[in-house]
């Protein structure tokens, strides 16, 4: 399994990986927080009405 010639200029793959990493982890975190705030807002609305 000798390393392939194009291993040296593999920068695009590396960037792709990390971009994917940032997108998924941070994206999920952002969605999670926004979702939590939204649910809290609904709860507050219902509490006010009850």
């Amino acid at each position: 399994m000798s390393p392939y010639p194009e291993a040296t200029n593999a920068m695009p793959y590396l960037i792709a990986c990390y971009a994917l990493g940032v997108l998924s982890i941070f994206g999920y975190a952002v969605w999670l927080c926004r979702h939590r705030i939204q649910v809290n807002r609904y709860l507050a609305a219902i509490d006010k009405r009850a």
Partner: protein
Amino acid sequence: MTERKSKFTLANSLTVLLAMLLGQWMLAWLWVPVDEAQGDVYRVIYLHVPAAFASFLSAGVLLIGSLLALRSKDEHWLNLSRAAAEVGLLFTLLTLATGSIWGKPTWGVWWTWDARLTTSFLLALMYGGWILLFGAIPQGPSRTRSCSILGVMIAADVPIIYKSVTWWRTLHQPQTILRTGGSTMDSDMLCVLLSGIAIMALVTVNMILVRRETLRLEQELEEKSLGGAS
């Protein structure tokens, strides 16, 4: 009234942890020396291995949640399992994606039945299956029981899969050149990698807890709105 104060710090700590994660990645890119065999591409290690570790960690949390739910027959533990399955799925898919993208330059092919990739692939299927089962059974004691049992089965199956797949792979392919966490890595590479795994673990657990909490709030919301509506 849900005590709003403590929730906020949980979410806050998530942002702190994510900042640390970013810092760790900066280190991985700039400070750590280039690997002589693979050149720059090996730096994916600092994302691929922690993500894989996170997916196995979520399987552990899923096991804990399932066992507690089975023993105490209390539905709230199911939220923990549900959160663990979701976060686990996210990290397993991430591991798969980075693994195959990394495979392209090093092995010249998008997918090989490498032991770790196959295990992650199966783990992703199992997480997906678990979430589907969670959705397929209406809320109630039978759902808690069934999902917890499946949770235990998945957690029991992970080591078996890993063992058999690694055994199968080593028979057909000499140990791949990825020196992941092996002692052959020089010290600063290793310490960055280990710190990366530690931070990723914290991020995972934090995400699971926040996700569990949103699930609990959603349940509360449903009960209250239903209660109010009738």
